[in-house]
């Protein structure tokens, strides 16, 4: 009679396994959803930071420059797809001069949302992208008196309009 597993334990274990299996799908879906909304929020914060830097440089006049280091805007992290199944942000980030907006596009197809975008208004309409250099590392924003120059890789930021 010793070392016997009772029939009740076997039944309960079976029922517990059934319940857990039925919940796994729902819980994973919630996890993905939370992950995607978190990434979307992170991307929006990066866009807001970029917009405020552009506006500050524009308002401060010729010669003023701001450098946003990788700690402030990390494009690798923003665009990384597959990070715990998130789809990341679709790079490059677009600065639309005609609309005076920064446009960030996020693919939410994994959580049923399709491709969504958020636009953050900026003041100047003369933002020009240039390749980063030793003197102006990515992302440096400079007011040269004529235009607002943004030194960033073409794969990370582009300007339109």
């Amino acid at each position, binding site marked *: 009679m010793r070392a016997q597993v009772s029939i009740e334990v076997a039944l309960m274990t079976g029922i517990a396994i059934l319940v857990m299996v039925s919940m796994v799908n*729902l819980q994973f879906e919630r996890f993905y959803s939370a992950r995607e*909304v978190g990434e*979307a929020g992170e991307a929006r914060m990066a866009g807001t930071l970029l917009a405020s830097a552009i506006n500050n440089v524009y308002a401060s006049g010729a010669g003023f420059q701001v450098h946003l280091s990788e700690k402030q805007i990390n494009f690798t992290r923003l665009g990384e797809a597959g990070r715990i199944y998130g789809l990341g942000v679709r790079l490059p980030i677009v600065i639309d001069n005609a609309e005076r907006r920064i446009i960030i596009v*996020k693919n*939410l197809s994994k959580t*049923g949302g399709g*491709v*969504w975008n*958020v636009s*953050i208004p900026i003041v100047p309409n003369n933002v020009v992208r240039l390749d980063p250099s030793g003197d102006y590392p990515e992302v440096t924003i400079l007011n040269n008196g004529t235009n607002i120059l943004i030194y960033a890789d073409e794969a990370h930021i582009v300007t339109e309009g």
Partner: protein
Amino acid sequence: MSVMPPEVRGQISIEFLILIGAIMVMVVAVFPFILSTAELSKAHAAARDGATFAAGMRGLGYRGADVDPVPEGAIRVLRVDMVEAGNYNNLTWYRFDITAHAPEYISTNTSYTSSICGTIRTQVLRHVYYAFYGEWPSGSISRVNTARYSFTAGCRFE
């Protein structure tokens, strides 16, 4: 320590057999009810997920390609009620009534609220569809039909 004779060992008592039999009868009797309740619970949980996802994303300022822009703000889902709305093609029709809350500069503008409500309704039904069919529907949907139920969604701000 008493030693049982060999013919008595390893026997299941008659009480236990009766108990198992009674449990099986009860489980079989309530099984259809359990299935239909589980289906409704699954749909309700998926609807809540869809509503909070839509509210969160629109609150951050995100929108689909052909959706009107709405200023960002804290959009919250207050309630997701499941209301029986009659029958639809021999299916029991349930409507998800979603009540949301937003700052006054959003909630007092009907074009903003209708845009957000459109997103919420769509995402609620898309999540319900995914819960039952395991894939996202292509395009926008206005109703999800399952084996027993038909689901639609309504939305309002308060």
